């Protein structure tokens, strides 16, 4: 296992270097002069020169690249043009809310998907199954930037049950978490249904029933447990969608996280902050994938020997 883990970590390093390089190149893709783009057309020449030297844009490209990588290793992501504070500080303040939102969305997705998938599987072909399957299909087809406002119209504007935006109380979590978790819930429900239907046909379920176990016990203790392995796989695969989903969800509900910070930085042409946010989200994604892969290898020894 240790050898597999070391090999997998080493394989991630070139990818991380590639990600860092691509993010470094972003500022050089700005048409014309990035300093001009940030300060505007009417900026005085002196201010432009100051900003260029502050961003290091007056240095040769290789020097800029070396400084950038050295800074990254030391945790220095540059200085935000808008806030005049270190980018790492700005992002650090917003990491907590984003992590909380993503975790809440995954919990909501599981809480919706498992009962829905199990009921659909147990009543396969019946009306309940058709309703559950249609709901799941709807969840997959509804983009979160539509679902969010729609939920806000019904649950906040019409019924007045939940706050439209902001943070502070558990009630503030509900709309953003449901918006972000809906697509994942739909996918998980479909997967739970499909795998549970397969598992229910297995002989070990019949054997469990023959030993006198109730149907509910045989389903929950035996078939459902085995059907959860692909469900966990889907959660791992969909972590990236949840991460990018936070960008839109945080924008809709004015959630003070990294995603909203990224959009604000883009609108303000704060390129160092844009680079920092993009880098953080990508590195988090690569790291999560690494953890998921290592978890699979730990759970399933065959993967280590492939």
């Amino acid at each position: 296992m240790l050898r597999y883990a070391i090999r997998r970590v080493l394989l991630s390093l070139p990818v991380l270097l590639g990600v860092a390089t691509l993010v470094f190149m972003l500022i050089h893709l700005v048409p014309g002069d990035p300093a001009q783009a940030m300060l505007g057309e009417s900026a005085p020449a002196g201010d432009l020169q100051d900003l260029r030297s502050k961003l290091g844009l007056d240095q040769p490209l290789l020097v800029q690249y070396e400084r950038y990588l050295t800074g990254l290793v030391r945790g220095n992501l540059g200085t935000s043009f808008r806030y005049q504070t270190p980018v790492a500080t700005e992002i650090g303040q917003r990491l907590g809310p984003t992590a909380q939102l993503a975790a809440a969305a995954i919990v909501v997705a599981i809480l919706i998907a498992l009962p829905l998938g199990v009921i659909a599987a147990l009543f396969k072909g019946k009306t309940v199954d058709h309703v559950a399957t249609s709901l799941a299909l709807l969840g997959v087809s509804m983009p979160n930037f539509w679902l969010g406002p729609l939920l806000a119209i019904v649950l906040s504007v019409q019924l007045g049950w939940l706050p439209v935006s902001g943070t502070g109380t558990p009630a503030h979590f509900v709309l953003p978490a449901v918006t972000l978790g809906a697509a994942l819930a739909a996918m998980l429900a479909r997967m739970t249904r499909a795998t549970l239907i397969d598992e229910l046909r297995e002989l070990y379920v019949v054997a469990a029933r023959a030993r006198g176990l109730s149907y509910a016990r045989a389903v929950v203790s035996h078939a459902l447990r085995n059907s959860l392995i692909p469900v966990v796989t889907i959660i791992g695969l969909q972590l990236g969608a949840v991460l990018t989903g936070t960008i839109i969800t945080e924008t809709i509900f004015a959630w003070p996280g990294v995603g909203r910070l990224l959009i604000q930085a883009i609108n303000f042409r704060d390129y160092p902050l844009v680079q920092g946010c993009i880098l953080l989200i990508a590195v988090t994604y690569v790291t999560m994938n690494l953890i998921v892969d290592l978890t699979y290898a730990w759970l399933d020894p065959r993967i280590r020997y492939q």
Partner: protein
Amino acid sequence: MMGRAGVIIVLGAMAAAVFGPWVLPFDPLHQELALRLSPPSWAHPLGLDELGRDLLSRLALGARVSLFVGVSVVCVSAIIGTLVGAVAGYAGGKIDMALGRLMDVLMAFPGILLAIALVAVLGPNLRNVVLALVTIGWVGYARLVRGQVLKIRELEYVQAARALGAPVVRVVLRHVIPATLSTVSVQATLGMAGAIVAEASLSFLGLGVQPPMPSWGTMLDAGRAHLFDAPHLTIVPGVAIALLVMGFNFAGDALRDRLDPRTTN
């Protein structure tokens, strides 16, 4: 059944995009400020927006944007991805490794994150949206085709073509790539839904098509400010996006079932 429904939805959207702006009586850019935020009525079946523009006409024009982005992103991504995947899979060795690392790096950016970054630096407009979505879009096709080519290149008819002295380019273009096209076409149909949602997402974030040109994403974004007084501004473009996405997903699933011998038999 679902496949037919999907095809009908897609054809309906295409007809609306092509003929809508000619057939519909209102100019999608014409403003009637006195009637702004009017709810659906006989004269304006889907109501008017925050500047008093007819929502049905804007929806039809917005369909053009969505379908244009969908078709162009999918076509260019599929062509680039198929060629790169075929080269990587057929050549193997260092070329495959180099292209594989490039794909790994691009896939390290989840979802549309890289597209957001590219549009942010290049500037928000339709051309840059297509460019950004192609930059992330070709990788999926390349991975798919590479996997197929690894198997196809070992098949007897390909070996025979090589033994007969056919040049590598001819073998790849005439014998290898055509064998991957059915899989690519399924992926492309399903990819249309992804491209349409991605364009709408970028426009919703203010990074796509710029006003006054309507896009379903910008229409949804504009509706957000009027959740309380004019919910139809949010509901109408949202239904359009969800329906079209569902249509392409149904059509893609049906195409996959038809082309997959395991489900056909």
